[in-house]
């Protein structure tokens, strides 16, 4: 296909933060953890490996994506909203001094609807998990 890129135009570029968004989109679309090389290939824009790596590290540092070892490299995975929220809760709980007290207070302050939901989730959990 004929490209409509015109010479003399200001060189195309990314707005600040756009690359992190694109990396996140690649991971979300993949539906499984990807290595930086796979992300680089999926972006398909001739980006340097280190550039992709930097974006992935930033996302991981912010807790937006998961990271686990896959052979010699790391594999990064998209976290959906419930998983992300659960991780944030864990982080809050870990930051508190008295984990049990914080958790008890949290459960006590749940509305009736959330309370029922919590009971339902415990009921669904396999034996020994609760």
């Amino acid at each position: 296909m004929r490209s409509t890129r015109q010479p003399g135009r200001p060189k195309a570029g990314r707005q600040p933060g756009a690359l992190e968004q694109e990396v996140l989109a690649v991971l979300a679309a993949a539906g499984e953890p990807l290595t930086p090389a796979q992300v680089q290939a999926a972006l398909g824009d001739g980006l340097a490996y280190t550039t992709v790596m930097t974006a992935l590290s930033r996302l991981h540092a912010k807790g937006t994506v998961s990271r686990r070892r896959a052979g010699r490299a790391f594999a990064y995975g998209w976290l959906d909203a419930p998983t992300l929220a659960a991780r944030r809760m864990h982080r809050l709980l870990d930051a508190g001094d008295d984990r049990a007290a914080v958790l008890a207070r949290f459960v006590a302050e749940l509305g009736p609807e959330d309370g029922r939901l919590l009971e339902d989730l415990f009921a669904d959990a396999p034996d020994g998990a609760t």
Partner: protein
Amino acid sequence: MSLHLAMLLPFAVAALFGVVVRPLARALPPAQAVRMVSGIGLVIAVATGFVVASAAFTFVAQYSALGRVGDWSAGSLRRVDPMSPAVGTLATLAVMACAATSGFVLVRYVRALVTSLRATRRLGPGTHGLVVIDDARADAFTLPGVTGRVVVSTAMLRALPPAERRALLAHEASHLRHRHHVFLLITEISAAANPMLRPALDAVRLGVERWADEDAAADIGDRRMVARALALASRAAAQPVDDARYALRMNARTFGPRARALLAPPPRPRRWVAAALAAMAVVTAASSLVVAVGTESRFDRATAVTMADHD
């Protein structure tokens, strides 16, 4: 300029603006078109609203004890410059309708904004404002607000190849960055206050989408790629969702004009088009000033007559 001419002129301009706004807006770069059309639309809406309100006030003052707040009497005002009851009643009703419809639009916007803010809080900060939701329906939109969010579903991401996905993200990011919902709100209120300005709302609706398209094309450096992203996204989002009024979505309704504009060279700034639009704002603003001065002098004369009667 006579008072009556000054009262009619803003309406003549509003009618002319309504006829020419869509083609003129399309001839300009969309960012300039949106800014000008929303701004000038507001000036015209305020001017026509002010003219109708002045007429209504004069009419009401002629037939009521409103004179107690000033120094004129209803009778003397009637003698100085009689206004026909038909025109007066029409103006009074129009003012009430104006206030009601624009108030309704404002309330609806505030409610949409509250819904949007709640959704924004629930979605969390996102990645530079982007939140990906796991959903089998292809969808992409921008939630308005102080910070706002771009929301894209996994199905939409999977429907697009990498470069087109980049174009979609750049398009939505432009909506967020330039607060396009504010231009929409301004124009929607103007069109609610003066129905002659409805075409301006169409122009701004198309204009903000074109603006985001042009931004995406500049980021990607390939206009055709953005047009293809548009085609793929429109096809993927088979069932358009119309729940959130101010959520800016990739939609199929504006697809044709947007795709054609992207396949053509980018619009250049045209000084005479911008000047023609600006002239309309100047004319309406000037004639409403004349109306203000004229109405005041009408009341001054009535006051003088009232004083003379008392002597």
